[in-house]
């Protein structure tokens, strides 16, 4: 492959002739940018630009983009162009590329926006997003009321499918995490309590911690990543595929048909998973108590039973119930408002998990303060 060369010929002071030599292809070595720029600069000084291609051995789109640049420069500097010397294929392709004129408003403006403008747009986006979320919650409440009055319906089979997906199928992961959380709790507590010879109170620590806080919290975090993300991805993919539009035109409300069964399934399942997590967490603590602190099993169990009351149990269950709603809300809301591209579905899923975890933690904080005020 020969090197592409660009030379200048000046038959007269008014005419600038570009002599193109060698292979003007995308695989060949090309003149340095500096050479090209100075040649183009010289061209703009002349009255006419012409071309000599006697020594041009081959060409492809590389030549075309070079010529396009010259054509634009010539137009801007009112220099006459004599294209006659060029191969006819080049001329034809250039002609085709110019058949349809550039649309006046087609090009995107990539102006750098000032900081305040970006801040303003960001705030407006947040406000719009909050409004959307409030509308969504409002619509859900109406939909729930309609369902309670028997006015809206969804496929019972869908409900049981979701129930199965977010319930029994999550047993493994919930068990693993809960036992480990119970173990860690007991471990950390044991180190401190041992200093006072109060190892037996590890049972209180683990029992209360799991029942009031960690059972519900860890279940919620697992379910955000597992079910919340799955809801957002399912609904997002349906949105991208036009299925949500199709539902609406069939007179079926996506809220009734898609959101309600998913939300009901999650609200029902999470408190049950929370009980499961509570018990397994206590079991984790029990293991540490027996094998590390050398406590008697019956002693540990009695201490746990003594430390716990129904109040503590319901405190956790109520939290789980609220978390269930928030996770389903985040998943369905982000999914239904997803864009229609593959990356938009990905973003919807990510933001569903992030939203769910943030909402869960905020709700947990608020509920803890309320419980404290009510002395529960």
């Amino acid at each position, binding site marked *: 492959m020969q090197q592409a060369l660009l030379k200048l010929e000046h038959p007269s002071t008014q005419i600038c002739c570009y002599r193109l030599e060698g292979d003007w292809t995308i695989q060949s070595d090309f003149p340095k940018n500096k050479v090209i720029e100075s040649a183009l600069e010289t061209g703009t000084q002349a009255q006419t630009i012409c071309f000599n291609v006697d020594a041009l051995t081959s060409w492809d789109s590389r030549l075309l983009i070079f010529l396009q640049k010259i054509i634009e420069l010539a137009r801007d500097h009112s220099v006459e162009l004599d294209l006659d010397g060029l191969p006819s294929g080049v001329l034809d392709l250039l002609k085709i590329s110019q058949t349809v*004129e550039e649309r006046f408003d087609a090009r995107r403006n990539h102006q750098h926006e000032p900081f305040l403008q970006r801040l303003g747009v960001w705030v407006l986006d947040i406000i719009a997003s909050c409004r959307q979320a409030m509308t969504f919650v409002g619509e859900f409440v109406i939909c729930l009321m309609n369902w309670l009055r028997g006015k809206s319906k969804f496929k019972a089979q869908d409900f049981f499918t979701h129930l199965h997906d977010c319930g029994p199928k999550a047993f493994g992961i919930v068990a693993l995490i809960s036992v480990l959380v119970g173990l860690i709790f007991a471990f950390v507590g044991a180190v401190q309590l041992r200093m006072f010879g109060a190892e037996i109170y590890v049972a209180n620590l683990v029992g209360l911690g799991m029942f009031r806080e960690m059972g519900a919290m860890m279940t919620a975090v697992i379910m955000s990543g597992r079910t919340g993300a799955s809801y957002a991805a399912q609904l997002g*993919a*349906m949105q991208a*595929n*036009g*299925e949500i*539009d*199709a539902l*609406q*035109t*069939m*007179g*079926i409300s996506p809220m009734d048909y898609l959101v309600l069964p998913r939300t009901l399934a999650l609200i029902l399942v999470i408190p049950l998973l929370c009980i499961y997590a509570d018990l397994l967490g206590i079991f984790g603590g029990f293991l540490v108590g027996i094998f590390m602190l050398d406590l008697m099993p019956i002693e540990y169990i009695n201490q746990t039973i003594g430390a716990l009351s129904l109040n503590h149990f319901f405190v956790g269950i109520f939290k789980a119930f609220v978390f269930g709603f928030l996770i389903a809300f985040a998943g369905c809301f982000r999914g239904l408002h997803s864009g229609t591209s593959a990356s938009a579905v990905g973003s919807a899923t990510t933001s569903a998990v992030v939203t769910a975890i943030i909402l869960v933690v905020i709700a947990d904080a608020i509920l803890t303060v309320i419980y404290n005020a009510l002395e529960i």
Partner: protein
Amino acid sequence: MTAYAMTEKVHIKACHLTLAYDDFIVQQDLNFKIMRGDIFIIMGGSGCGKSTLLRHLIGLNHPATGQILFDDIDLCTATPELRNKILFSMGVLFQSGALFSSMTLAENVCLALSASSAVKLTLQEMRELASFKLALVGLKGFEDYYPNEISGGMRKRAGIARAIALDPQILFFDEPSAGLDPISAKLLDDLILELRDNLGTTIVVVTHELASIFAIGNHSIFLDEESKTIIASGNPTDLRNHCDNRKVQRFLTRDLADKKHHGSGTCFDNDLSNS
């Protein structure tokens, strides 16, 4: 002699319609009437807003200004009951088919049936009806297939089976023959004509397939991207033969050279700056 007789009754009417996404106006001041039993073609170049207009007609988007009236009822302001009644009287075939990917073809069709509380069919009857509709579009025996197990053309036909599940009074087709081979496209055109002739269905088709436009359309509007409004309306064949507007001419004849015709087409030669 067909069972269908043309009744000069307005079915859908658009008054001073402006379609916009936020601040971006797609089309403005659209006025047209679709008669009962019409096969109404919405045509225009790519990106001119045909599908956007369709989304507005089926109530997925709300017009920025103006109204769309179905038998004098505005879908946007109708009570939920009336709105549902109108929605149940229409069927839509989306460009991609938009079948529910988690359901079999029969379930897709049955869903349309079970959505309407007016339908009083047992599950068995629904299933039989779904099979019948699938047979109508040439998909007999594919009841238990999922959308991802069949070809693109079959998905489109299954989409039609779902759209016609409730024997709708109005059918909307978004690019029905796009992606179909010529024979399937012809069969689809025949099916559209059969539906209109036998059931008197009003059919609105968004397309730029010339063969289909001339074969089935009896009324049409031509949307222009530049002037953002309707630049011609009438019978597609008449427009081809008599319309003076160069854009419409070029579109309908697939010819970039200008031809001058003199005749009486309802077209508005208002924008030739780029022609």
